[in-house]
């Protein structure tokens, strides 16, 4: 067992990077990620982490430096938020194309303008097709554990893809809560250094990146698609291996909660899941048969597990903490798309909420369950329940 | 008239892409629907380049490169040794090659008519391009007009004047010169 400490979600990331003995960190400061890199800088300065911390001049450079260090075999880590992640967009594709197992902590934050430093999933949702594994966390413990898992499944020979571990701004990043910090020797056993394939070595001919014409590029992209499909098994195996060693697991891809005999299930991501557990318990006590499903791994998208939700209830809602202009929340669109292909056709609703740090309080979540259960499904498919409108005086 | 598909083979700097464009303009002047585009690859002086033209009476909707050409035009004879220029050519089509050789001695099998013209000599005679890099496209198009009868030489000359950046008269003269000098073998070459 490790040592129990009261730490923020950001420090949980820093501890995970230290325990993973990362070789090279390259990062640029952005609220609310800053205390991650400050803590890492402290570890390096105090000699507690033998790593090269490259203080770059932009997030774009932060990820390129990681990719180049990874290209010669180093274990690399970085962290960012919002605008920084958007600036990395070009390099996010590059990482997957180069098959670089970079691990990145992302503190989910709204995108400008207007400036907003508060939580919102738009930044990482906008990167869902770049070839990065994406895991959304609900607690600081989950952040630390998932980061340690990420190094392992990202570096597996059959995966070799980059991974994002996300945490909600302030609700996790700056929230102090008890976290078990594993012992270094246990993590060393968990993350042994294995020689990596397809890297550059001094004295050996080889070009990483290259140039492909129409006759071969598609086949090459397919090999990345295969790796992401392979990541499904790798993530579940890693979670099982982690549980056997550290005695903790965080719900795999999709974790149903009290869905037995449910009339309605709400799909949630990030810290909204915790609050929603409270609401489900209180509604159950009032005899209302509701449940929730924590959607934890967003890439690779857990289509099989999501389709199984259709067997749990006839009405399924999705709480999107982001919104795609022109239709709806990305999480809803992918859940709905998957269910449309399944045998059962549940009534589907998208609830847009919590943008820009707006609190997702129990009453607001309860309102979503009410909307799900009311009527015979003639209401709007995509709604913003907690919108402040003058006429409703809310 | 079905959609006529023409594939040009040349090297960077020899004017294959402009050749496809001139041909399309010429056919357009005769009221045809046209489409011309290059295979955009590593354009380097000297590197093999491919360009395409489609000509038809009805609207052209295909948005693909041309893999079964009715007509293959080769601006540089050296390509015959290195690039499969006649790959996928429809039987009974036309192969036009810029070479000193006569059609029967082109040296590659072709199920269709073969025509040859020494466009390099004609271009050099009309001062087009440099000794190391003669610009042969307009001469080849003159030969094409005669060998294919798809467009009239007058349309080709008019299109040349709209498309070439300089030396309009010399380019027009080279096309007319090649129109006269092209050699066309009637029967299929084994």
């Amino acid at each position, binding site marked *: 067992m490790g040592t129990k400490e009261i730490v923020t979600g950001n420090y949980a990331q820093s501890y995970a990077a230290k325990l993973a003995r990362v070789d090279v960190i390259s990062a640029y400061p952005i609220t609310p990620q800053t205390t991650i890199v400050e803590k890492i800088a402290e570890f390096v300065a105090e000699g507690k982490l033998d790593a090269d911390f490259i203080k770059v001049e932009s997030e774009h450079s932060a990820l390129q430096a990681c990719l180049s260090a990874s290209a010669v075999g180093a274990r690399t880590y970085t962290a960012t938020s919002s605008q920084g992640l958007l600036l990395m967009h070009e390099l996010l594709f590059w990482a997957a194309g180069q098959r670089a197992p970079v691990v990145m902590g992302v503190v989910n934050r709204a995108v400008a303008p207007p400036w907003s430093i508060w939580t919102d999933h738009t930044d990482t949702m906008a990167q869902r097709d770049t070839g990065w594994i994406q895991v959304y966390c609900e607690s600081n413990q989950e952040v630390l554990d998932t980061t340690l898992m990420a190094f392992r499944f990202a570096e597996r020979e059959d995966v070799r893809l980059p991974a994002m571990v996300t945490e909600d701004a302030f609700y996790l990043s700056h929230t102090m809560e008890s976290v078990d910090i594993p012992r270094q020797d246990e993590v060393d056993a968990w993350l042994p250094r294995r020689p990596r394939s397809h890297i550059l070595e001094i004295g050996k001919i*080889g070009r990483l990146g290259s140039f492909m014409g129409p006759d071969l590029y598609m*086949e*090459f992209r*397919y090999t990345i698609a295969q790796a992401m499909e392979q990541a499904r098994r790798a993530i579940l195996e890693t979670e099982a291996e982690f549980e056997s060693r550290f005695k903790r697991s965080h719900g795999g891809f999709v974790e149903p909660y009290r869905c037995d005999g449910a009339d309605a299930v709400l799909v949630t991501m990030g810290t909204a899941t915790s609050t929603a557990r409270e609401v489900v318990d209180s509604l159950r006590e009032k005899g209302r048969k509701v449940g929730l499903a924590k959607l934890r791994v967003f890439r690779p998208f857990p289509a099989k597990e999501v389709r199984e939700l259709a067997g749990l209830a006839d009405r399924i809602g999705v709480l999107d903490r982001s919104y795609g202009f022109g239709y709806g929340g990305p999480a809803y669109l992918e859940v709905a798309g998957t269910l449309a292909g399944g045998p059962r056709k549940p009534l589907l609703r998208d609830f847009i909420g919590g943008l820009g740090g707006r609190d997702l309080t129990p009453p607001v979540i309860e309102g979503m369950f009410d909307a799900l259960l009311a009527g015979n499904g003639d209401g709007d498919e995509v709604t913003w329940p907690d919108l402040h409108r003058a006429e409703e005086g809310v | 008239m079905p959609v006529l598909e023409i594939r040009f083979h040349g090297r960077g700097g020899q004017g294959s892409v402009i050749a496809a464009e001139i041909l399309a303009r010429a056919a357009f002047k005769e009221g045809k629907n046209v489409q011309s585009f290059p295979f955009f690859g590593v354009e380097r*002086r*000297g590197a093999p380049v491919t360009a395409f033209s489609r000509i038809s009476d009805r609207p052209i909707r295909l948005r693909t490169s041309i893999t079964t050409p009715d007509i293959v035009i080769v601006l540089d004879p*050296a*390509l015959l040794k290195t690039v499969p220029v006649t790959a996928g050519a429809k039987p009974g089509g036309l192969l036009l090659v810029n070479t000193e050789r006569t059609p029967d001695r082109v040296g590659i099998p072709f199920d269709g008519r073969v025509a040859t013209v020494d466009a390099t000599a004609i271009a050099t005679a009309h001062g087009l391009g440099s000794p190391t890099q003669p610009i042969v496209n307009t001469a080849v198009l003159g030969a094409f007009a005669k060998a294919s009868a798809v467009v009239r030489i007058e349309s080709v000359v008019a299109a040349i004047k709209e498309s070439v950046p300089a030396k309009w008269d010399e380019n027009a003269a080279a096309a007319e010169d090649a129109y006269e000098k092209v050699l066309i073998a009637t029967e299929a070459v084994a």
Partner: protein
Amino acid sequence: MTRKPLRYVEDIPGGPFATVPTNEEGTAGWRTIRPVIHLEKCTRCNVCWKFCPDVAIDFDSEGFPVVLLDFCKGCGICANECVPKAITMEREE
């Protein structure tokens, strides 16, 4: 030896990792003219070797330059820079 071009998913190594040296395939077809070295004038000063952008000039056992015709693109730099004017550019047959 020209290598069979890669085509299938199964041909793709586990990453965009290229290791085939380019000198396995020639670029001779690029030229319309080629350098001819007149050894009687050549002083073996190796200027032609030094300035070749295609590394297409090597040396024979006595140190005379030899044009590697598989790779020469016929740019003419060697002829232009040759001090004793021992190199002329001839049209490719």
